[in-house]
């Protein structure tokens, strides 16, 4: 590790009492010719300096859209932010001008994406793409930006960085490409790094390397991280807290240990039960019956009720409120306590 590169951001960047980043009651919809899809329906979560929040959910649950709303890179149309606030260091990003938001991107909050091959521009060398951020945002000279790009590639442990700086994305392996992505995101020393399924497109062994790298970098650089994933296995070792999303809502929110020990929402419980276990052989894998809801016709009441083993009439009629269960845990389930008791047993 080159020491020169490491410049930890002080945790004091957060104003007194507030969170570093806070999403409040966010609503996003996609207006298409076929109708309006309610993709995000009142998501709230927060992130403090130096911590890692995992956002967990199936595809279509709205986890990536929330992240893109934070970054301000939603494609509008079709996406429209209907209401809500995204507070960064106490300021609402959603009420800022495009130019102000642009200044935040990369410099305050940076993001890495799922498939690095398509997320990197295929016709420019990787070093050029890393240096571009530095040249355009920091006004660095070509030579300085190049030097810094090599440092960043060293930082993310790309072997022979100096030799490979002129190579194109397609010349790298999947894992190395994701490292390039990470180096690019770290270029401006962001305080928040959003990792949107950073390991989904990778081999299992490489997944572990990338997760370790992210965890190390987060610690060394003192960043906060939002880790978006659908893979419970990825989360366990890295995250401090988990927010579980379903149909554009946060259905459960807890610290990692309590959530793994005893989930308080039937959906989380189903997810945990569907992980294959080595110690229980010869049994069929448990699955969550049914399919994720069509976001144009979200079921009444609790959106999970058609798939839920705990379903009662109240679930069909009434949207559950967020139930506080102690230790900062919340669950959006009418029977959260029962589920929790069942799980703990």
């Amino acid at each position: 590790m080159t020491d020169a590169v490491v410049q930890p951001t002080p945790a004091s960047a957060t104003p007194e009492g507030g969170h570093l980043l806070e999403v409040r009651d966010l609503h996003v919809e996609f207006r298409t010719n076929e109708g309006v899809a309610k993709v995000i329906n009142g998501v709230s979560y927060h992130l403090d300096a130096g911590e890692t929040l995992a956002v967990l959910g199936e595809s279509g649950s709205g986890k990536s859209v929330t992240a893109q709303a934070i970054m301000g890179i939603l494609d509008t149309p079709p996406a429209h932010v209907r209401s809500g606030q995204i507070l960064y260091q106490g300021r609402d990003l959603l009420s800022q001008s495009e130019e102000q938001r642009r200044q935040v991107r990369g410099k305050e909050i940076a993001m890495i994406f799922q498939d690095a091959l398509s997320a990197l521009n295929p016709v420019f060398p990787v070093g050029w793409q890393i240096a571009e951020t530095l040249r355009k945002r920091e006004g660095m000279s070509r030579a300085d930006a190049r030097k810094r790009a090599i440092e960043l590639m060293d930082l993310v442990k790309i072997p022979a960085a100096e030799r490979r700086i002129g190579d194109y994305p397609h010349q790298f392996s999947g894992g190395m490409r994701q490292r390039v992505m990470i180096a690019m995101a770290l270029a401006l020393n962001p305080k928040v790094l959003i990792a949107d399924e950073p390991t989904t497109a990778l081999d299992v062994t490489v997944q572990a390397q990338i997760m370790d790298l992210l965890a190390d970098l987060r610690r060394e650089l003192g960043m906060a991280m939002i880790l978006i994933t659908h893979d419970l296995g990825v989360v366990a070792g890295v995250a401090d807290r988990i927010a579980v999303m379903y149909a554009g809502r946060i259905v459960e929110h807890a610290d990692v240990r309590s959530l793994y020990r005893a989930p308080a929402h039937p959906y989380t419980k189903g997810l945990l039960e569907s992980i294959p276990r080595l110690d229980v052989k010869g049994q069929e894998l448990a699955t969550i019956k049914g399919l994720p809801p069509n976001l144009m016709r979200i079921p009444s009441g609790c959106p999970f009720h058609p798939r839920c083993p705990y379903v009662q009439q109240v679930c069909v009629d009434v949207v559950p409120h967020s139930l506080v269960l102690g230790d900062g845990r919340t669950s959006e389930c009418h029977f959260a306590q029962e589920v929790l008791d069942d799980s703990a047993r």
Partner: protein
Amino acid sequence: MFRYILRRLLQMVLAFFGTTLIVYALMFAGQGDPIQALAGERPVTAAQRAYLTEKYHLDATGVGGFFYRYFDYIRSLLQGDLGQSLTGRKIGEILQQAWPVTVKLALIALAVAVIFGVTAGVIAGIRRAGIFDNSTLVLTLLVLGIPTIVLAPLAQFFLGVKWQLFPPTAGAEPDFYALLLPGIVLGSLSLATALRLTRTSVAENLRSDYVRTARSKGLLKRRIVSVHVLRNSLIPVVTFLGVELGNLMSGAIITEGVFNIPGVGFNLFRGIRTEDGPLVVGIVSVLVVVYLVSNLVVDVLYAVLDPRIRYE
């Protein structure tokens, strides 16, 4: 990159022999009596027939004789001798006069296509489904739907004869102004295709993942479009324009005919009409080379623009 070009060059050699062989075969293999064709309606004396048979190696018959004459032709072609047309003029001289005219015309047409087609295509791609996009869609469909044989006389009649904005015909040694209207007519088809291609390519690239990445880096929209999107979008457009330049260089038979431009297409058409075999084969052989070279340039340009091609 060097190996890439070398491979393309080797392919070119094969393509050259293949195409010239086919053209030569099509023109001469089916001919019943080439000497009578040469003489037209007039009778041919035995002495003349013997002389011409000797001169064109017509004594060798069958497939062997055909290849003998073909290689004879290729040999002189490689020495730069294109032979004589049936009218007795050197084909090299004919091309020397016709070529500059066609090249000028082709460059005007290409410039029209690049300047208007690509620019409008980029704007239409950025403002997808807007007024500009939709009106260019209608216009390009209109242009693509009208064949040159209709468009050229229409333009000649209205812009040349009726409103007298341009000279209606070009004449023996046309200047830039005389070639402008034919150039625009000729280029309008490439323009329409280039516009549609650019528009689709830009619109598609704007939605790609790397644009999302560029935005998350906090780059200005202007830079994202002009550097990231444009560079990727132009790859198919450049390919199209390069091939199109090859097409335009090989002469526009209809446009040159309508506007009376003494270019390559004009001469080629005359050769076909008067069954002037040597002239047709001579011109086509040169066109093959022009076409192959322009394709090579496209391939190299393609590899320069898209690094993924270089290492295939």
